[in-house]
C-alpha cells in the first residue's frame, strides 16, 4: 500500500492536476454556497466534463467538487441563515447568530478549519480502515434504520430546548409532509389531493430553500429600515491564525464530530444532512455550557462542519469496498466508476490500485487546498453580503431561491411549492416553530418509514412481527441512544438547578 501511496503523489503534484483540483474546489464551493444546488446535483452536472479526462483525473475533480461543496454550504448558512446544502442545516444555528454579531468572518474561518479537519479524518478512515468498517455498515438493516430515524427525531428535544412541544410538533409536521406522494412500500398514492404532480412528494431541497431562505428574506424586508443585513466587525489583523488556534484547541469536539460523521457516512442512505445534526446534538450534550448553543458558540459550527465533511470520506468506504454508495453523491461516483470499467469492490484495490490510491490521496490534497480557497472566497462573500443593502439582498435571495428550486427537476411547480412553503415557514417562524425540526422530520421521514415497514415485513417469520424491532443488539444500542438523547436535556435542567442551589449555599456558608 505504501508504494502505491508514494506513486500516487507523482500523479497528483503536477501543475495540471493541481489546477484541476483548484478549479473543482472553486466550482464546488460556489455550488455549495448556492442554496438549491446540492453536492449530488453539482457532481452529477459536472460528470460530462470528466468524459474528456482519463478516469483518475475525472475522479479527482469530482472528489474536489464534492468536498468543497459540502464545505461551501456553510457560507450561506452563516451569512443568510439558509443552509447551502442540507449538510449545513446545523451551521445556521450558531453560524448565523455569530454573523449577526459582526463575527461573520470568524464564523467562516471556524467552518473552514473544521471542514478541513473533518474531511481529513474521513479520508484517513477511508485509507486505513475501509474493509472492516464496511462490514459494520451491512449490519444496519431495516429495524436499525428505523431506530436511527427515531434517534434523529429525539435530537429535537435538545434543538428546541426552549419549547420542546413546538419542536416535536414541527418534527411531526415534517414527517407527515414527507409521506406525501407514493408510499415507499406498496406504492399507493398518498395525500396528493388528486394532483399527479405531487406523486413525487415534496422535494427536500425545495422545502429546505422554502423554510430557510424565504423567511429570512421576508424578515429582512420586515427590517427594511435597518439598512444593512449584518453588522461589520472591525477587521482585526491576524484573525486567521487566531481562529485556527482557537479551533484546534477543541480537539475533543473535532475528533468526536468527525468520527460521528464518518460513521453516518458509512451507512448507506444517511448522509451529511443527518450527520451534522447528530454531531451538533452530541456536542451540545457533552458541553459544559449547553445553554450557549444556538446563540453563536464556535463549538456548534465545529461540530456540524467537521462531521459533514467527514461524511465525504466515510461515504466512500462502502463504495470502494462493497460497491454500495454511502451517501447520495457516492451513487454518482459509482456510476462514473462503472462507466470507466472500474468495478468497485476488493478487486479495485488490487487491479486498479493506482487509480484508487491516487484518488484517495487527492482528497487529502484537495481538502488542504480547500483552506486557502475557502478563506479567500468566504471573506469575499462575507464582505459582499455585509455591504449589500437589504433592498438588493432580499430580491437577490428570491432570485437564488427561484434558480435553486427550478434546477432540481426543471419544474415550475417546484418553485411555486418552494414559495408557498416559504410563506408557511415564515408564519410558523413568527409563531416560534423553527424550521430545524421540520426539516429534520422531512429528512428522516423516508428513512424511518422505509425501515419501519420493511422491518414489519421481515418480522412476518416471527411469532409476533413487532418483535423484529427488539431482537438485534444493534437496535438496542440505538434505542438506548434515543432514550438518552430524549431524556438528557430534561435531566440536565433538573441537575443544573440542583448544582446551582448547591453552589449558592456553599458560597453563602
Amino acid at each position, binding site marked *: 500500500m505504501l508504494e502505491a501511496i508514494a506513486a500516487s503523489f507523482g500523479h497528483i503534484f503536477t501543475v495540471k492536476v493541481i489546477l484541476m483540483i483548484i478549479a473543482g474546489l472553486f466550482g464546488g464551493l460556489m455550488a455549495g454556497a448556492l442554496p438549491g444546488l446540492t453536492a449530488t446535483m453539482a457532481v452529477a452536472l459536472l460528470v460530462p466534463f470528466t468524459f474528456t479526462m482519463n478516469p483518475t483525473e475525472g475522479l479527482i475533480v469530482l472528489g474536489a467538487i464534492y468536498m468543497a461543496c459540502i464545505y461551501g454550504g456553510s457560507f450561506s448558512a452563516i451569512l443568510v441563515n439558509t443552509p447551502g446544502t442540507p449538510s449545513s442545516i446545523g451551521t445556521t444555528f450558531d453560524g448565523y447568530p455569530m454573523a449577526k454579531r459582526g463575527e461573520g468572518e470568524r464564523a467562516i474561518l471556524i467552518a473552514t478549519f473544521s471542514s478541513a479537519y473533518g474531511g481529513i479524518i474521513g479520508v484517513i478512515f477511508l485509507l486505513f480502515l475501509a474493509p472492516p468498517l464496511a462490514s459494520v455498515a451491512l449490519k444496519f438493516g431495516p429495524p436499525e434504520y428505523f431506530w436511527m430515524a427515531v434517534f434523529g427525531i429525539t435530537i429535537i428535544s435538545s434543538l428546541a430546548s426552549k419549547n420542546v412541544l413546538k419542536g416535536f410538533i414541527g418534527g411531526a*409536521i415534517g414527517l*407527515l409532509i414527507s409521506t406525501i406522494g407514493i408510499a415507499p412500500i406498496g406504492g399507493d398514492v398518498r395525500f396528493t389531493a388528486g394532483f399527479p404532480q405531487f406523486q413525487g412528494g415534496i422535494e427536500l431541497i425545495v422545502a429546505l430553500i422554502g423554510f430557510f431562505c424565504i423567511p429570512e428574506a421576508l424578515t429582512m424586508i420586515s427590517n427594511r429600515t435597518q439598512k444593512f443585513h449584518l453588522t461589520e466587525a472591525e477587521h482585526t489583523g491576524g484573525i486567521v491564525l487566531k481562529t485556527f488556534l482557537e479551533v484546534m484547541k477543541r480537539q475533543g469536539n473535532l475528533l468526536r464530530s468527525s468520527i460521528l460523521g464518518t460513521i453516518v457516512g458509512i451507512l448507506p442512505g444517511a448522509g451529511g444532512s443527518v450527520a451534522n445534526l447528530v454531531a451538533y446534538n452530541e456536542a451540545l450534550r457533552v458541553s459544559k455550557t449547553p445553554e450557549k448553543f444556538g446563540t453563536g458558540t464556535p463549538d456548534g459550527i465545529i461540530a456540524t462542519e467537521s462531521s459533514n465533511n467527514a461524511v465525504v470520506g466515510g461515504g466512500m468506504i462502502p463504495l470502494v469496498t462493497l460497491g454500495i454508495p454511502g451517501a447520495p453523491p457516492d451513487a454518482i461516483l459509482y456510476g462514473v466508476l462503472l462507466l470507466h470499467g472500474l468495478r468497485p469492490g476488493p478487486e479495485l484495490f488490487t487491479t486498479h490500485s493506482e487509480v484508487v490510491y491516487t484518488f484517495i490521496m487527492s482528497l487529502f490534497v484537495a481538502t488542504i487546498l480547500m483552506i486557502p480557497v475557502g478563506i479567500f472566497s468566504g471573506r469575499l462573500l462575507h464582505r459582499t453580503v455585509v455591504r449589500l443593502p437589504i433592498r438588493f439582498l432580499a430580491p437577490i435571495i428570491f432570485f437564488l431561491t427561484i434558480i435553486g428550486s427550478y434546477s432540481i427537476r426543471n419544474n415550475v411547480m417546484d418553485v411555486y411549492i418552494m*414559495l408557498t412553503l416559504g410563506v408557511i415557514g415564515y408564519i410558523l417562524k413568527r409563531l416560534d416553530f423553527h424550521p430545524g425540526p421540520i426539516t429534520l422530520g422531512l429528512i428522516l421521514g423516508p428513512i424511518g418509514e422505509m425501515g419501519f415497514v420493511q422491518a414489519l415485513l421481515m418480522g412476518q417469520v416471527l411469532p409476533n412481527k413487532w418483535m423484529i424491532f427488539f431482537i438485534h443488539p444493534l437496535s438496542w444500542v440505538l434505542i438506548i441512544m434515543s432514550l438518552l438523547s430524549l431524556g438528557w436535556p430534561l435531566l440536565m435542567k433538573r441537575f443544573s438547578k440542583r448544582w446551582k442551589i448547591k453552589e449558592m449555599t456553599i458560597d453563602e456558608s
Partner: protein
Amino acid sequence: MKADRIASIVFIIVALLFWPQTGGLQYNCSIFPRLLIIFLFFLSAALLIQTFLIAPPKTVSFIPKNLRYIITSTVVAFVWIYLLNILGFIVSSVVCLTTLTFFLDLKRPTFMRTISSIAVYTLMVVAFWLIFHNFLLVPLPTGYFI
C-alpha cells in the same frame, strides 16, 4: 399565547384532515402516516392545554413590522414565478428584481438609481443564465423571450 392557541387548533385540524385520506390505502402504506397523525394530534392537544395552564410570558407580537411590504414582496415573487414561462427567465427576473428593489428603497428612487439597478441586475442575471444554460447545460424557463 393566543397565537399558540390558534396554531395548535390549526394543527389539530390538519391532523383531522389527513386522517380520512388514509382510509383507502393498504396496510403497509397507511400505518406510518396514521401513527404520525396520532402523534401530531396528541402533541397539538398538549400544546393547546399548555396555553391554558402556563402564564404567557411577554411575547413578541405575531404581526411583523412593515407587513405591507412583506405581503407585496410575496405577491411580486408569485407573479415572478408565473411570468417565468411567459416572459422567460432573464426578462422576468430583471423586471421583478428591479421592481422589488425599487419598492424596498428607503429613499425616493431617482432615474439614475433605477437605470443602474436595471443594468447591474441584467448583468447578474445574464451571468447566471450563461453559467447554467451554456456551462452546466441546465435549461432555464423560456417563454416568448428567454
